[in-house]
């Protein structure tokens, strides 16, 4: 398994556990095994309890971390993928489709990074093109028409910066999503499952309730991007500083009032127990939708507006 440097001590213990378990006299080593497992659990909890923001970013990017397609498999029933923006093409970097989550029929929209090399390339590592954002909006409008709640899963380093994406109006596509999502007359919940990179993330995250998975990040720019500009160079030291300065962790975003909830991940992160992560997320979604589906559309849209309207209003002050 791929290991982050700070996970290595835990993985070393796991190797020992494996060795003991496969040893011919495994039964006689039960005590030793139990001790090792307890040590492993403690170490894992301790490591994850004191992650720096930059380490959190690296957990959010862990190659084994569950992606939108994984959560769909684990959390949705009867998923029916819908393709294409009916304008230009189908962007695999954003998956959209009909799904059942608990008692709800929903429209699911989520960034997809891809697992295999071929997938990653076709998804551009989760960086969507304008047609991805337009596809998302088209399907969200359909959800509004049929009074289906919308669930979006955010996992992108940012919208794709390329010649064609500019030519096809990346900025316009995101801008229109921001405006339209703010007035869709159906409940919207969003979860940042991994990376929440800037406008590319927000482009599907103007929601009534926004949550972050415990080890996700969400910010106006990536730590490396910020370090390269403000510290003139992106390296381990400046990335660490930038990640802290940007207040990009779930906890800081919650404290700053920019998200509504943090969904606790299993010990050692979602990649260690994807099912537990999916189950926690599903629980949160169902809980939110129970509340939101009770509201009439006018109230819903007004509250959503007021929520975003208030952001940064206290951060700017009126002098004298």
């Amino acid at each position, binding site marked *: 398994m791929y290991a982050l440097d700070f996970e290595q001590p835990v993985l070393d213990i796991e190797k020992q556990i494996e060795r003991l378990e496969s040893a011919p006299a495994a039964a006689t080593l039960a005590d030793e095994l139990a001790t090792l497992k307890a040590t492993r659990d403690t170490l894992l909890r301790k490591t994850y309890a004191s992650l720096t923001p930059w380490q959190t970013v690296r957990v959010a990017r862990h190659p084994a971390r569950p992606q939108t397609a994984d959560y769909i498999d684990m959390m949705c029933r009867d998923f029916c993928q819908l393709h294409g923006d009916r304008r230009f093409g189908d962007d695999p970097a954003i998956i959209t489709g009909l799904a059942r989550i608990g008692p709800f029929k929903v429209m699911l929209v989520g960034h997809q990074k891809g697992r295999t090399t071929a997938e990653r390339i076709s998804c551009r590592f989760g960086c969507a093109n304008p047609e991805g954002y337009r596809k998302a909006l088209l399907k969200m409008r359909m959800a509004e028409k049929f009074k289906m709640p919308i669930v979006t899963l955010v996992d992108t380093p*940012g919208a794709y910066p390329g010649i064609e994406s500019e030519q096809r109006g990346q*900025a316009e596509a995101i801008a229109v999503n*921001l405006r339209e999502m703010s*007035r869709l007359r159906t409940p919207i919940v969003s979860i940042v499952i991994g990376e929440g990179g800037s406008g590319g993330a927000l482009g599907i995250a103007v929601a009534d309730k926004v949550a972050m998975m415990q080890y996700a990040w969400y910010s106006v720019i990536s730590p490396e991007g910020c370090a390269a500009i403000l510290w*003139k160079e992106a390296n381990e030291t400046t990335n660490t500083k930038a990640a802290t300065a940007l207040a990009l962790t779930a906890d800081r975003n919650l404290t700053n009032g920019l998200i509504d909830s943090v969904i606790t991940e299993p010990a050692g992160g979602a990649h260690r127990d994807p099912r537990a992560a999916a189950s926690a997320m599903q629980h949160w979604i169902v809980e939110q939708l129970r509340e939101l589906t009770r509201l009439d559309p006018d109230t819903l849209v007004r509250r959503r507006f007021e929520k975003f*309207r208030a952001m*940064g209003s206290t951060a700017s002050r009126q*002098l004298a």
Partner: protein
Amino acid sequence: MAERAAERTWDQVETLAPKKAVPEGLWTQCPECGESLFRKALEQNLHVCMKCDHHMRISARQRVEQLLDPGTFEPMNATMSPMDPLSFVDMKPYRERIAQAQRQTGENDGVQTGAGFIKGRKVVVAALDFTFLAGSMGSVVGEKVTRAIEHATDHAVPVIVVSCSGGARMQESGFSLMQMAKTSAALARLDDAGGLFISVLTDPTTGGVTASFAMLGDVIIAEPHALIGFAGPRVIRQTIRQELPEGFQTSEFLLAAGFIDRIVHRANLRSEISRFIDFSGT
């Protein structure tokens, strides 16, 4: 990957600004063609080079002065000043950067908003100020633009936003990101109320400003040869590892791609805006 995907923010655009401040004096040089220009004449020509027609960057105050009927501008929320919600420190504390920008420009933050008249038509106007931290959008810019849009909505007056910005302001991180949602949501309400929004794009308009209100005009016009885009040219070049085509991300490029309605010479902005207002009947 991530750093390449990052949106361009204000510091990156600094390199595009003229290296030296224009020296005070009777004469000044065109940063494009190098022609020596008589300052008074240049001002009268709206800071457009008399030789090569280059549209020079101007401050928000100059913009408002050029756009509105003389003496009609009534500023709104002029005293609103940035906070430092994250106590952000990079190589220099954000507070110091703000104080320095305030000293250099004499402004509180990077936008002028207010009410006034254009050829006798009542308007609300917001002009972003590149001279203040590269016109980057933090909470103050977002809040003032939002209030301007809301004022226009409440009073059924057209709103004109002149963009000139490197994008979101990194030092306010999530707060600046959310200004994109806030301003766009305010425009949804203006739209629902049948209000007119004219978006004017000037050099440069990039990042989070382009990806929010700047691209949401009922009418979107741009000054000639302005740099307009989502990602900055450097970020794109690093991502795709190839040279960018000639004229990429200019006003002319966006017109051909179908994302702006018209390119308008600075001298004609007032009359064109008046025309849109008359057509819309607002």
